Structure formats: C-alpha cells, structure tokens
C-alpha cells in the first residue's frame, strides 16, 4: 500500500463529508453527480487503506460507470432536481443544512464511541468516512422520494458500507458483486427517471 494514502487519509474523510453533504444540499443534478463522483474517489481512497490500490481502483471504475449511467439520464430529462414530491414534507435549504450537520455529528459520535460494532482492523479514518457516507446517504433517502436523489442516497449509503465491509470480506467475488450492484442501481434509477419523463411528455401531448 502507498504510505501517503494512509498518512493523508483524513483528506478522504473530509472529501466524503463535503461531497456527501453537498449532494444533499445542492439542487442542480450536474453538481450532484460531480459530488457522487467525489464520493467514489473518497471511497476508493479509504478502501485502499485495506486493499491493494489496484484492487480498490475497481471501485472507482465501477463508481464512474454508475455516474456515467446516471449522467446519460440526466442529460435527457434536465438538470433541475425536485426535492419533495409531497406537499408539507420539509426539504428547504436550512432544513437540509441542519440535517446534514446533525447526522454528521451523530455519525462522528457513534464511530468515536464504537457504536457501529466495527472490527479493530478498520482504520479510524475509514470508519469515520464510512459512517459519514452511510449516515448522509440515509438522510438523503429520508428527505426525498425523487428517483434521482433516491439513487444518489442509495449509492452513498452503499459506498459507506463497503468501506468497512471490504476489511472483513476482502474477496474479489464480493468486490465484483458490490460493484455490479452499484451499476445495477444506477441502471434501474436511470430507467425510472427516463421512463417518468417519457410518461410526462406523453401525458402532455
């Protein structure tokens, strides 16, 4: 393993936090996709603490493929993301900021106190990065029912989970399977996004 990856691992944690938080706060789908790509870079870095970087790079490739699939659907349906499809569900800017800060602080506390039942072998930076991505992904799922945002939330939560799961299950098969699931989720979500826009167009015509 490259030693600077380990020494500068907190940069990856910072990256996970910033990209995970901005993916929730921003409304432009292009920026959200960029944040998701950033999450995958952080994921690769943190997975690289436990696995050879060549193997961890597979996560980056899979993640970028998932981003590309989502990007194709975004190009087709437009860049503005609606947060809530339901009236009365709080989703304003201030609410999202407060949500992000609360969840991040909670996950930080949880990881610090060992509340995630993590094995000893997990690097502290990986544990924190994992907790943040998992928590922010779940928050994203909680505040929106729009397929694009649900997709981003699911992929973030899965990315967070994988950071620690590769430590306990470092097999190639599981790595490949998890990557396939990332791509599968992005395909299904893209299908929903594009299909819904086609329905809307047909409904108007």
């Amino acid at each position: 393993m490259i030693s600077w990856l380990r020494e500068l691992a907190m940069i990856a944690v910072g990256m996970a936090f910033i990209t995970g938080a901005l993916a929730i706060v921003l409304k432009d789908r292009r920026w959200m996709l960029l944040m998701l790509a950033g999450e995958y870079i952080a994921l690769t870095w943190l997975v690289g603490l436990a696995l050879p970087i060549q193997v961890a790079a597979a996560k980056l490739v899979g993640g970028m493929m998932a981003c590309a699939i989502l990007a194709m659907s975004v190009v087709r349906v437009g860049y503005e993301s609606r947060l809530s499809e339901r009236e009365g569900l709080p989703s304003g800017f201030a609410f999202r900021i407060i949500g992000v800060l609360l969840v991040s602080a909670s996950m930080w506390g949880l990881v610090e106190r060992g509340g995630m039942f993590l094995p000893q072998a997990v690097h502290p930076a990986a544990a924190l990065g994992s907790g943040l991505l998992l928590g922010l992904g779940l928050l994203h799922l909680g505040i929106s029912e729009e397929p694009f945002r649900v997709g981003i939330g699911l992929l973030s939560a899965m990315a967070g989970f994988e950071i620690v799961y590769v430590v306990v299950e470092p097999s190639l098969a599981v790595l490949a399977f998890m990557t396939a699931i990332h791509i599968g989720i992005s395909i299904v979500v893209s299908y929903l996004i594009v299909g819904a826009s086609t329905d809307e167009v047909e409904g108007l015509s």
Partner: protein
Amino acid sequence: MSAPLILTIGSILLAAVIPFIRLRREAVIAIAVLGAALLGAFALLMPIEEALSMGTTGVRVEGTWMILGRALTLDDGNRTAVGFLYLIGAFMIGGTWMAERSRYLPSVGLIMVYVVAASLMVKPFLFAVLFIELAAMGAVLILVEGRFQARKGALRLLILYTLGMIVLLWAGWLVETGGITSGATQEAMQATAFLALGFAILLSIPPFHIWLPTAGEEAKPYGLMFVAVILQSAGLFFLLFFLNQYPWLRQNENLFAGARLVGAVMVVFGGAMAIAQRQFSKMMAYALLADFGVIVIAVGTGQAAGYELAIGHSGVRAISLAVWALGIAVLKQREGEDTLERLEGSLWRFPYATGATMAGLFAVGGLPLTAGFPGRWALMTILAPVSGIAAGAILIGTVAITMGGLRWMIAMLRSRSGSEERISWPERIFLMSGLGLCLVLGLFPQLTYPLVVKAGEGLMNLLP
C-alpha cells in the same frame, strides 16, 4: 461443464432472446414457459457428478461452478428447491398470457427466478443476499412497467431491499467472526438484533411492508403477485438456511416467540386492512401480507413440522395467488379499474374471471375446502399447545379475509347489468383450471405438500 453454469447460461440466453422473438405473444410466452420448465427439469433430474455415456463419448456434469473464489453448487441438498423454483416460475410466467400485456415479465421474471435459484446455490450461503438484491432490481422493472409516474412502491422496494442487504451482510459478519456458541452472549444478541432487522425488511414484515400496499395501488396486479411471491420465498429460504446453519439461533426460544408474535401481528393487521380496501389489487397486497404472516408463524414454531408447513405453504400460496391475480388482471383489463364500485355485477359480465378471482381470494384467505386451508389447519393443530395467541390470530386472519371476500362477492353479484362478454375457449379453460386447482389442492393437499416440502431437503438440521 457444471450444472450451475448450464442453468446460468440457459436462463440468461433465454431471457435475452425472448424480447426479440417476433412471434405472436402467446408463442413467446410459451417459449419462456417451456424454457423455464426445461431448466427446472434439468435441475431436478440431471445426474450430477456421474459419468453419462452418449454414444461413443462420455459426459460428466459437475455440481460446482467456481467464480472469483466463490462457488455456485447444485447438489442433492438444493436441487429440489432450485427445480421447483423454476417450475413455479414457469407456472407464473404462463399466467401472463391472459393476465396483462407485459413486455418485461417473461424475460425479467425468468432472470429473477434464476437469481433467486443462484441465491440457493451460492456457497457460503451468506452471499445469497447479494443475489436477492439483484432480484429486487428486476422486481422494480416489473412493477413500474408502463406506468412510470406510479413508481413510489417500486422505489420503496429498492430502498428497503438495499438496506436489508447491508444489514444482513453486517449481521453475517458478526455471526461469522463472533465465535458465537450460545444465544445469551452479548455478541449473539447484537447479531440476533441485526438478523431480525434484516429479515424483517426482506420478508416485508410491518413496518417494512410499506412498498406492498403502494405497489398494490400502482402496479399491475399480476406483476405485483409475481414479485412478492418470488422475493418473499427467497427471503424465507435465506432465513431457513440461517436457522439450519447456526445451532445457537435454533436454541434461542425468544427468537421463535418473537417470530410467532410478529407473524400473528402480520396476519391480523393484513386481514383487518384487507377487509377495508375498496381496490381489489390493494386488498391482494394486504392479503399477501397476512398470508406470509402464516409462514412466519410456522417458522416460529421452531419444530420440523412447522418448517415443513412453511415450505409447503409457500408453494401452495404461489398457485392461489397466481389464480387470484390472474382473475383481477383480467377484470381490470376489461373493466378499466378494479374498484368495488366498478366491479359491481362483474360476475354476470365476466363469470370465468370472477370465479377464478374469488377462488384465488378464498384460497389465499384459507377458507375450508380451498388450497390455503390444509396448511393453516395443520399449523393451528401444532400451535394450539404452544401459542394460543398465534393460533387465534390465524383464525382471525382467515375470518377477516373471508369476510372481505364475501363483501366483494356480494358486490360482484349485486346488479345484473350488461351481457356476458365472450372470451375464447382457451381462456375459459385456463381460468377454470385455476379455479379447479384452488379447490383440488384444498381437497387433496397430499398432492402437493409432500412434493413441495422436498425443497427443504438440504436443511438437514431443521428437517432431520
């Protein structure tokens, strides 16, 4: 060549080719059904790890396919389950001929069946949950087909199954590394809590059932039935594998008491909600919940007879639900909607579809002389000395769904408006066969139960 590889190639090829076949819809579905049935027969009958002479050459089909360090294995322990899964898949895919014009169900449905079969074959079995997640992705495609605005139920399903996968993988790690030998240790309690949460999500136990009623409102009824039966059966077998593998789980009496309680809640809640519905497919969603509650209670008995009933009932319910969903789908197609108001007098206009619908409904509810009754009766006999509450809940659930069914039947009989719509003879025969099947399986349960129970052959510790 290995048997799992043949099943993989066969399923993927068939699913890939089906959408491109330019024949009549009936012919395409017939190809899908025949293909699935052949794959099922292959899994059931093909001699594995034995040399077969074919003329001058010999062929030997291996039981294991290694892929990236993990194995898919077809052996005597799981081949019956895999075979039956394909056969039930073929039966349900066949129903799409009449049920609804579904572009995806034959091909995506076949892939779902394969993926669930792979979840039964994968070693270590813990990774089955990854395959179930793939099946959930296929389920989303089936649920939203043609109605993308109505996608809430499908999205909820995707979210829940992805989170369920995460929780169960983590629980599996806790179990594997915790060195757990007794259910009383702290590690065991942590692992049990994660397992309970993961399985609650996978088996759609309230409150994780929220995708079902929403999908009931939005999706095509036959597609919903297919998805629910396949996913819940996969979850059930995964749960049984866990119980089979870990003795400390089997010795945890609290776990079984909890399962009985949760199952009882599912049966009563599902039954009560079903009776109140004014849309038939939404009623089916709640009846699905109540019916699966019966299976959860059967597992909660912690006895071999209970596990056998759970497996047997999961096979029988696939038939009853398919007949019910087929009837609803035909009625919805012809009447435009499946609300109580719209279906008034439908018995006079569509006697065959209405008859199949009611037979399926009463069979799912567990009315005596229908397919759902023998399993419930046997289960209540086992439960009576162990848990009167669970036995009572089954009775309440049966009464509730039957009352709901009677309400619909009265509405369907009420106003004799419009003349009988003509349907073709094959369609009549198909619907009447479904109706007959629901009655025959109720009168002669020995025809199916002993066969379906063989699907649990690999569960040596649960079914000695």
